[in-house]
């Protein structure tokens, strides 16, 4: 490496001084930059709306007769003989396609219990001798607040599951020593005349941590 003459040496020495000065200045401006810039860092987070209250609602889908009794609600709808004649069981009418004609007084009922119009006869479940009760196929009378016994007379395996707590909604205590299990009855979920559970709205899907503001729902199966 060539030796530097004294003047070049002095120049390189000056360069070092200039650089030191420059570095000092940059440090001080960095200090000021940090001091100014220390305001809160706001991560660009989307304002996530709280879930709609309807998705937090845990009340049963339907009220049964037993629920109404317990809540001391108006039971006049269940007084069949307010309209019907005690001596005569009501006549069931069918149209030309063997489908039940629902009388206009009971227009809220949709009959679709079982495939192939299996339950086309109201008296499969209702007791024509006493309209305030229900009946099973062997003639045994079932009260309105004892639905599982009626349903279970055909749906045996489901009844067994329900009694064990494996079918249907439960709440309360898994530890029976500390409290009771509260089993919902069949009619709390299933409409006895159209027992298929209807579809309903699902709560919104998950959000991702770094969602871009204009996030589109992923297409196809992702």
């Amino acid at each position, binding site marked *: 490496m060539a030796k530097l003459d004294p003047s070049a040496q002095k120049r390189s020495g000056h360069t070092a001084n200039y650089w030191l000065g420059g570095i000092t200045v940059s440090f001080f401006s960095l200090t000021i930059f940090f001091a100014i*810039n220390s305001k809160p860092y706001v991560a660009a987070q989307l304002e996530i709306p709280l879930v709609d209250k309807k998705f937090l609602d845990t009340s049963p889908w339907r009220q049964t007769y037993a629920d109404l009794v317990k809540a001391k609600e108006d039971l006049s709808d269940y007084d069949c003989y307010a309209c019907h004649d005690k001596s005569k069981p009501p006549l069931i009418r069918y149209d030309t396609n063997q489908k039940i004609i629902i009388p206009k007084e009971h227009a809220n009922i949709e009959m679709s219990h079982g495939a192939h119009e299996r339950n086309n006869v109201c008296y499969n479940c209702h007791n024509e001798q006493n309209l305030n009760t229900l009946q099973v196929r062997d003639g045994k009378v079932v009260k309105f607040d004892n639905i599982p016994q009626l349903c279970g007379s055909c749906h045996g395996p489901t009844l067994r599951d329900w009694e064990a707590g494996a079918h249907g909604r439960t709440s309360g205590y898994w530890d029976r020593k500390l409290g009771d299990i509260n089993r919902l009855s069949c009619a709390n979920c299933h409409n006895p005349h159209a027992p298929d559970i209807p579809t309903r709205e699902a709560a919104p899907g998950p959000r991702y941590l770094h969602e871009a503001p204009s996030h589109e729902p992923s297409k196809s199966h992702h």
Partner: protein
Amino acid sequence: MIYFIRNYVTFLLRCARIAFIGDWRYYAWMGALTIICLLGLNAYAKQLVHGLITTGMSDEVSWGVYIANFTFLVGVAAAAVMMVIPVYIYGNEELHDLVIFGELLAVAAIIMCLAFVTVDLGRPDRFWHLIPGIGQMNFPQSMLSWDVLVLNGYLLLNIHICGYLLYCRYQNKKTTKWFYIPFVFLAIAWAVSIHTVTAFLYVGLGGRPFWNASIVGPRFLASAFTAGPAIIIIALQVIRNFTTYRIKDKALLTLRSIVQVSMIINVFLLACEVFKEFYSGTAHSASAKYLFFGLHGHYALVPWIWTAITFNLIAMVILSLPLSRGLRWLDVACVLSIIGIWIEKGMGLVIPGFIPTPLGAVVDYRPSFNETLVCLGIWAFGFLCYTVFLRMSVPILQGRLSKNNEGQIDSEMYKLDKASIINSNFP
């Protein structure tokens, strides 16, 4: 005893003082590095306050560039000790001094590793929970606990070896072999272990089929022993150009052969992985599909991995040809290898392990600006450390900073500036 402490303290103070002395290029370099460090520190302060949401990580991709850089640097640290093998095992005395440069690189790399792990923690204030005895260390079940032990042990080993050798040279004393030779051999074995333990961090996770493969460990070592010596080759040339320390070409060529063989093994292992993932076509190759070809409309990593593979292949070809004996071509090959392996270890290993998630979701990861600043800050800090180490060790090894010229005043220290060295009669 007091005499001993006084001497040692003087030694340390002189080393510290010399770190602040240099020519204008030194000041420019250190100034720039310090500024980047401080920007990184500021970004980290923001991260501490607001949490890791300032990064691009999420529950889906919960490890990002921090752990990617950590993984790469553990490899560099392990391989930096590679220099040791020719010297101590093959008795190649010419490379003796260069061992110290390699081990100092290992120290700097481990410091960077520890920094990267610390910034990745959600609660760094609870670091003491990791200390065995005081906290709760899940040893030997948790591979992270192994990692903590081996990394810190490796750091202490290397600091001891370098510190002892440098201090002996400073005092112009002969080294006592027992004080450092056993540690050197321990460091060789330990180097392999730190990188194997880090590999096992990933391999041990059954729920991540991309990582749960036996090839990961060997691939780690092969890529580490490519990138590590490549970095040392570059570092030695920097030392050659910026100090008066003489480094023979033979050293560089010895390292070249290590890089050459390791790169060939690395590429072979890549081929093995690609075959395994794509020939059998099981569902476990979803991550590999994402990495190499994209998955379900997400292609973020595809350009990166193909760039890495291209760089690695070109580097391998250059290294295999005799033209890489020329330093310019060697440098090109080294730089290509370093970049290629950095991409492979980081974006090619850590990120695809998380995509798709164990439940099949594909969420892309992109490092945030804050995260990048922290990474750059730690890298700058590592460079800073290594520069300081070299600034201290080169004069010691050359004998210009020694007990003999203790007690000289600052203006005498001036003589250690590059400009005056040129005028001195030192060889």
